[in-house]
């Protein structure tokens, strides 16, 4: 579980065809840009979750 939590944001970040498009735009920002920006805090939360799981 810990490793899965660490792996998921990496796979999403490297799965370029998934987000290499303009729509759906958010506040006028193309998907390509906002998806990657949103993924940054998600990846931090995933590491936090992995840390919690790892301790128990």
């Amino acid at each position, binding site marked *: 579980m810990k490793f899965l939590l660490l792996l998921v944001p990496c796979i999403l970040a490297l799965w370029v065809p998934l987000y290499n498009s303009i729509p759906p735009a958010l*506040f006028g920002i193309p998907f*390509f840009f906002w998806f990657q920006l949103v993924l940054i805090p998600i990846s931090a939360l995933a590491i936090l979750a992995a840390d919690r799981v790892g301790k128990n």
Partner: protein
Amino acid sequence: MFDHLNVVATAVFVFFFGLVSVLGFVAARWKAADLDHIHEWGLGGRRFGRWITWFLLGGDLYTAYTVIAIPAVVFAIGAFGFFAVPYTIIVYPFLYLTLPRLWAVSQKHGYITAADFVLGRYGHKGLELAVAATGILATMPYIALQLVGLEKVILALGFSGQGIMAHAPITIAFVILALFTYKSGLRAPAMIAFVKDAMIYIFIIAAIVVIPIELGGFGAIFEAAGKAFDAKDAANPNLAAGLTLKPSQVGPYITLAIGSAMALFMYPHALTGSLAASSGSAIRFNTMALPAYSLVLGFIALLGLMAIAAGVKVATPQDAVPQLVLWAFPDWFAGFCFAAIALGALVPAAVMSIGAANTFTRNIWKPFVHPDMTPQEESVLAKLASLVVKVGALAVIFFMPTQFALDLQLLGGVWMVQIFPAMILGLFTRWFSGWALLVGWAVGMIVGTSLSWTGKAWAPVHALSWDIPLAGHFDLGLGFAAYNGLTAVLVNFLVAATLSLVLRSQASDATSPEDYDDRALA
């Protein structure tokens, strides 16, 4: 020389620069200890808690050059410059798994450099030298590029000089930097990082709020940028400019992100900042907290698009951010932003010179020239080496074209990742032997360097097909181009693994499995 000087901006700039210089000298008394010990001078006594480490590593990794270069690529060709975002996303889960182990074993055995660990783990002086030399070689151009970032903002302040005077401001800045680093060691950049990072956050938050309002919203910015890229693309399709990646860019985008992430913590400055942490949990905390800087980096990248929408005029793409700042903000705040970027050059330049100096002292001078050095002699030599490294970087800027530093920096990344197998595999297993890793490293260096030479210029990516002399054409059939650092490190790994099968390691291992568990040490 001062005819076009922006007086208000320059005054603010000089004020913050002066303030921080004072801090750099005062830092010698912070967490007071005997700075005549390399462990204290070069690693702050390993007493930096989670927040100091956050500021220090944030200031150290997200450099002035980054603030200039990443938006420059986005300004020039759009989407491709955003590779820095997936790069900084994947690096932290990886660090969460590896860096606490390196911290623990280094704490236990008093290692202060990557090469220290490699020597302890593999008992192989040749591999130690290879790791040390790679680190120093890759760091030198990186420091020189911090100067390029510094020079860009000084240029934007309206300073123009001829001949030797053209470099007068960065020379003064670097002399100040050299002196406080010499005196205070790692404490200086750690203390300055507080101010610098706070200023960068203020700069970016203001930019991300104010500039879109001035330009009529994000929609208008992306529309203008999209049109500009379409025009560029029509004029020159080889440039591959656009708001999304062209099919030919996808392979390079992914492999550059992976390879850069693998290389980042091989650099001496990244390890110096990490090993100075006071505990493994301070490091784990930072793998969750440092992404805040990645978010800032993502916003900084967007500045490249805003510069297009604002229609700023530039001589080179690297002027995009400074010119955008002048366009968007009143003079006093432009001076503040430029000071933030300039300080963003000093923190990494200081840590890089300390990291390189520690490495030179511990892993080149001590083992090969003067094995009986006392800790005091180590400290004296490291301080001197930090000066030499900075003079060298300054000389590169003085006497070489900027392209030389850029090319070396590009190659530096390709080289740096070649110590990845020895370092990272070594944290988990001693199955690999020192000789095998050394041969793998040498092969990786040669493959990476030769892939990068296109016959006319140096380039970071290469198609996965080669014409090998005597052997003919060779094609992996994957149909995409990849980052040379990654291709070369895969070859490096295969060579090291194959040779390790044949040449079993007989050398001693100074570490034991429990040394790698920081929670057990605590």
